[in-house]
């Protein structure tokens, strides 16, 4: 008991000191507190209303959406979006950003491995699992292992689970936990109808994850797919299939989710209710993220307000008020021209961002930045797992390449069939020059799309802030 108070006090002092020095201090306070008292997360999470968001892709976007929605519904929201999603970052958020308000909601983006360790201490009310794609396998190991880690975490809580029904690995987390699971996904009839919109053909299919049933070792059959391994799957042997959703996205790809103002509906099959919503953060994958956020907020509102019938409607309305966060499709205006940064950390993310840029009607040029520091994964091979080939021809005519591993990315783009003149690429020291060149060639109202991975994004942010005087614009 005394130790956790000591830990909490130490964390607060460290945060104050570091902030005075102008540092973000999102990790060290929590790290120190955990060292002093390993039980500090349990202690500081006690009595709080917590939503966790985990999964390999879309954590930050979904957490951001949930936070904005709850805020617009009048809740005080505390989250770790500008911080870190490991145990130390979460401890920091709970201790240093904690509110005295008993009704505050904590929205915590949680790394998959960290979730396994701390879920039991957090005791979240609602736990969202977005999806499971291959992600820096050199750091995280195999996908089924990641799934098992999450399962272990879940079993130490009594949280209501919000699970993606279209992802076989995530959906399997609902087995044996049916009475506390709520599924979301793209509506199955809708997905089937949209299969009519043909995708462009490719030389070689992208490397796929999780297309075999892990129990029966038989290939899943798909009635329809949205992208990658997400879809209406069924194991022909054991019959395990994409579960029925409570919340599902009814959509039509006649117009593009990459354009602003895309409209679709979310259906609540439990109450036979449907609401039209507008996609506030573009990109077809954000149909999933929006639906996950609406599901989480609806379920939370029902829990807090004893099954209030308006919960779903309120959540849908709130989803239309969400604004993009920096680095997540936010467009930065630079003298009438725009820069849009799409962080890409793994094959699924790059695949979705490439699709997005090929569909965006305002794309003037695209720029790739590749680093391979520890936080990125030392291995750059993942860029070859992506089906660049089918999208390369539809990318803007000007393609720029930079980053510490620009040679690898340049080769990747070249092998996808796009030749890049030498004045369009260079190492990280040339990145800003290349951005300026892209902006110079960009017409008024058009946009330069930049796709960096993690540490190259941090570096680029720094450069942009410095060059265009954009003071701390991501906070």
């Amino acid at each position, binding site marked *: 008991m005394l130790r956790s108070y000591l830990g909490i006090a130490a964390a607060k002092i460290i945060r104050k000191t570091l902030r005075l020095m102008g540092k973000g201090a999102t990790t060290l306070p929590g790290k120190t507190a955990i060292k002093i008292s390993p039980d500090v997360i349990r202690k500081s999470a006690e009595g709080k209303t917590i939503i966790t968001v985990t999964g390999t892709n879309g954590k930050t976007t979904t957490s951001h959406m949930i936070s904005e929605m709850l805020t617009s519904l009048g809740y005080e929201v505390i989250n770790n979006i500008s911080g870190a999603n490991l145990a130390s970052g979460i401890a920091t958020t709970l201790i240093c950003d904690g509110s005295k308000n008993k009704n505050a909601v904590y929205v915590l983006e949680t790394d998959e491995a960290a979730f396994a360790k701390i879920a039991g201490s957090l005791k979240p009310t609602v736990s969202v699992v977005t999806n499971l794609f291959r992600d820096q396998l050199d750091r995280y190991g195999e996908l089924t292992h990641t799934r098992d880690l999450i399962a272990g975490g879940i079993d130490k809580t009594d949280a209501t689970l919000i699970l993606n029904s279209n992802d076989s690995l995530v959906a399997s987390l609902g087995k044996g936990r049916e009475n506390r699971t709520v599924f979301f996904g793209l509506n199955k009839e809708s997905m089937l109808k949209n299969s009519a919109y043909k995708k462009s053909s490719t030389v070689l299919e992208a490397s796929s994850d999780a297309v075999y049933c892990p129990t029966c070792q038989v290939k899943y059959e798909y009635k329809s797919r949205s992208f990658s391994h997400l879809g209406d799957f069924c194991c022909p042997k054991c019959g395990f299939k994409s579960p029925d959703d409570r919340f599902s996205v009814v959509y039509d790809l006649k117009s593009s989710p990459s354009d602003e103002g895309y409209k679709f509906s979310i259906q609540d099959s439990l109450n036979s209710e449907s609401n039209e919503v507008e996609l506030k953060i573009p990109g077809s994958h954000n149909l999933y993220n929006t639906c996950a956020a609406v599901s989480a907020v609806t379920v939370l509102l029902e829990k807090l307000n004893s099954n209030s019938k308006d919960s779903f409607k309120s959540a849908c309305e709130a989803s239309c008020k969400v604004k993009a966060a920096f680095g997540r499709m936010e467009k930065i205006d630079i003298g009438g021209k725009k820069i849009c940064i799409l962080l890409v950390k793994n094959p699924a993310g790059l695949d979705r961002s490439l699709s997005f840029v090929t569909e965006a009607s305002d794309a003037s040029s695209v720029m790739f930045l590749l680093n391979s520091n520890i936080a990125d994964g030392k291995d750059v091979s993942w860029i070859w797992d992506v089906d660049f080939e089918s999208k390369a021809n539809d990318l803007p005519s000007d393609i720029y390449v930079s980053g510490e591993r620009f*040679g690898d990315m340049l*080769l990747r783009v070249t*092998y996808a069939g796009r030749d890049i003149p030498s004045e369009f690429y260079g190492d990280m020291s040339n990145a800003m020059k290349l951005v300026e060149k892209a902006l110079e060639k960009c017409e008024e109202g058009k946009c330069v799309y930049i796709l960096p991975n993690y540490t190259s994004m941090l570096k680029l942010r720094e450069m942009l802030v410095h060059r265009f005087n954009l003071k701390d614009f991501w906070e």
Partner: protein
Amino acid sequence: MSDFELNIGHFYPDLLNLYGDRGNVLSLYRRASLRGIKVNIKSISIDSELKPDELDLCFIGGGQDNEQNILKDDFVNNKGPLVKKMIEDGKVFLCICGGYQMLGKYYLEHDGSRLDCLGALDLYTEGADVRFINDTVYEYEGKTIIGFENHSGRTYLNPEGNCKPFMKVVKGHGNNGEDGMEGAVYKNTFCTYSHGSFLPKNPFITDMLIEKAMQNKYGSDFTLALLDSSVEELANREALKYLNV
């Protein structure tokens, strides 16, 4: 219509597709196509029949343990005898990591259990608990070859056996971290732990594999036309610079 054709057999692409192994097939495709060769890529997985006569060049990648377990039986027992014969007949193979280990005699797990493999090459692998995860640089016929290794298995070649090491380790661990050697070669079968992808930054090896496959098919005087490799060489050079080699 092109006069020349190259049929690539891509083994278990739905299960063995780790660490950008797919890039190797893309490399073969690109550097053959650019020379006017018509390239067909055939996927060979659990349900498909293996027809050796219809394939000129085969690629087997690596997979996650879970995925590798799914295909092991099909590979060793169903397709195994045919694959062995193809290797003996001098068909061109490139095998990476798991694909490499499966051609050996056995895999001895860390817990002592033994998994029998194909036995086409006289080598075996032992599991260890420390994984080798790092960039790698090798030397092969005077060329500097770049890769990325990620394996816990330690592979040992029988010095009296049918295969020889493929490359010399300049940076990294190689087969077992002990003898300074990497991979194995037997006839036209080339094996390595190098992911990364292996072929894109090493066009010399891509061309060697294509040429051998074309010579098998069209006669030993078949030679590949010269091809610009400036982007590949730049990527190779930049990677060396990044690794301070």
